[in-house]
């Protein structure tokens, strides 16, 4: 009975990682990452540049040996069963993982041939994917002449010539316009519906929110928070008030007022005139801004919004992503 249970548990996980470490020079790019990602789910790996997202994915995709720790992909050990793992995974890197000098159809046919399709099957499969991804009109165009969104789609198409059991997507929508981003999101959702497990990295909380069943927030190589998006947002608070002051000298008074009315700590932004505070109650926000008006504190801009990645970081770590970026220049 005990044995049965063990097997069942083992079968549930697409990725299990324990204490993965990668060290570059003296810095740990990845510093003890644990992951447990269920089959058939989307896992969002959220963090700023240099947090260790790409390094973690590269280790899990058998591209980079870990300096410490272990991981299993569908029960296969990362070190000893690399070949078995590569039969089940696919990777779409942050930069185009295709030959930009070749046309769209040539790229897909190349991958299909490498996967074991005959020439004819490869052509059929390539055309099928190009059509499904809305790229049939550009099949015979060199990929370097594609737009950003088209490029990202052909890249993902190349990853699913043979539908993988686990797909790694490294920042699939960075630099895309909203329409292209939505197209990529549609593709990811369709993949999950057919049973593929997806691990994606992103810098945008909204993206993780839209797609991921569970989200891991990574900073300086460590996972600092993990859970569903509602769990994460609950830890951050429901909303955030951003205020841009006209005069820097009003700052102290503005901070006092906001702390008084909102009952929350006020964080300074990147310049001396922007303030951020957690705000759960819009009525109190209105009152605080009313107080600003009475005290003649001029405001050039304000917004009350859902928490952004920056606010997740503010809350979880006490400093912003910009500070993190400037402090750390690795990868």
């Amino acid at each position, binding site marked *: 009975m005990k044995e049965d249970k063990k097997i069942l548990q083992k079968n549930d996980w697409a990725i299990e990682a324990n204490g993965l470490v990668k060290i570059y020079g003296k810095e740990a790019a990845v510093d003890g990452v644990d992951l447990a990602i269920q089959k058939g789910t989307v896992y969002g790996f959220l963090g700023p540049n240099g947090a260790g997202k790409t390094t973690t994915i*590269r280790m899990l*995709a*058998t*591209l*980079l*040996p870990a300096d410490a720790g272990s991981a299993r992909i569908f029960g296969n050990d990362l070190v000893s069963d690399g*070949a078995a793992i*590569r*039969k089940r*995974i*696919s*990777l779409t*890197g*942050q*930069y*185009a*993982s*295709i*030959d*930009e*000098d*070749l*046309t769209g159809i*040539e790229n897909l046919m*190349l*991958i299909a*041939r*490498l*996967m*074991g*399709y005959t020439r004819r*099957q490869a052509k059929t*499969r390539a055309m*099928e*994917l190009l*059509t*499904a*991804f*809305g790229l*049939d*009109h550009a099949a015979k165009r*060199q990929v370097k002449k594609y737009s950003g969104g088209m490029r990202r*789609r052909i*890249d993902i198409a*190349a*990853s*699913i*010539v*043979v*539908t993988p059991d686990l797909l790694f997507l490294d920042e699939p929508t960075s630099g895309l316009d909203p*329409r292209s981003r*939505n*197209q990529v999101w*549609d*593709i990811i959702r*369709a*993949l999950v*519906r*057919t049973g*593929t497990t997806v691990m994606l990295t992103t810098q945008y909380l909204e993206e993780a929110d839209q797609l991921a069943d569970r989200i891991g927030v990574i900073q300086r190589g460590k996972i600092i928070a993990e859970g569903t998006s509602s769990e994460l947002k609950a830890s951050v608070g429901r909303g955030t008030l951003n205020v841009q002051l006209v005069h820097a000298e009003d700052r102290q008074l503005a901070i006092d007022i906001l702390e008084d009315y909102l009952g929350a700590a006020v964080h300074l932004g990147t310049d001396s005139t922007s303030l951020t505070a957690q705000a759960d109650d819009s009525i109190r926000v209105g009152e605080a801004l009313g107080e600003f008006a009475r005290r003649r504190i001029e405001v050039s801009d304000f917004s009350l919004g859902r928490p952004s990645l920056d606010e997740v970081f503010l809350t979880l770590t006490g400093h912003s992503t910009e500070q993190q970026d400037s402090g750390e220049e690795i990868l």
Partner: protein
Amino acid sequence: MTVQQQTRETASAANGIEGSTDERLLQAIASGKRPDPASGWSSTMAFASRALLRIKHIPEQMFDVTLFPIIFLLMFTYLFGGAIAGSTSDYLQFLLPGILVMTVAQITVYTGIDLNNDIRKGIFDRFRTLPIWLPSALIGALLVDVVRYTMASVVMIALGLMLGFRPEGGAVGIFLAIALVLVFSFSLSWIWTALGLIVRSEKSLMMMSFLVMMPLTFISNVFVDPTTLPTWLQGFVNINPISTLATAVRGFMHGMGTWQQVVNVLLVSAIMTAIFAPLTMYLYRNKK
């Protein structure tokens, strides 16, 4: 096709993949069944066809196997011919086999440069996550390079014949000589692929190849008879693998080739391949 379907097709063409193509997307994803893995041979052929397609799309990369040989041969024949051998046509008989070796040896570096370019793009990671026999990625590319080297050889010999090159070894001699050049160049390419995986950029690789190949090709018996050199330099010329190859190629083109020369070239080639092919594959697999 019904009118409705047609409208839908048109709409989806206009909108990319939005909306109604959803089922088509699901269908396309679901039909990505895994075939039996590609054999080492078919993945090698797939990579070779990639290299051929790259030539089709970037034809200017053929300059090195067409223009280089022409310029090198004309330049050195007319520049040195009178001074070294008294006449250009006499010198051509001596020079052509050597300059062929030099030209092909120098263009082997492009294999490493192509690989270095792949690494800096994401496609290198893609290949390494595919369930394929990994050496096929390099062997496929190298096979096409061998075709390129053949082209360079043919161009050079054709031009030489027009300029008055008279190989006493005949067609068979030329054929054997080119075969030796190809074996040697294939083996030499592994050095550049290994370095291509280590160095940061294609510029540094070009620099390194220049630093290595310039002395190796010039301080050899390609241009001059080594007996005219100081003794200490003769020592270097004699152990220089470029000299080994040039001697054999010259021998076969002029009908004086020996088995010993063939063995020497094959031995040098085998040593280069035995060291640098496994090293390349190790670096390819374990590239950070």
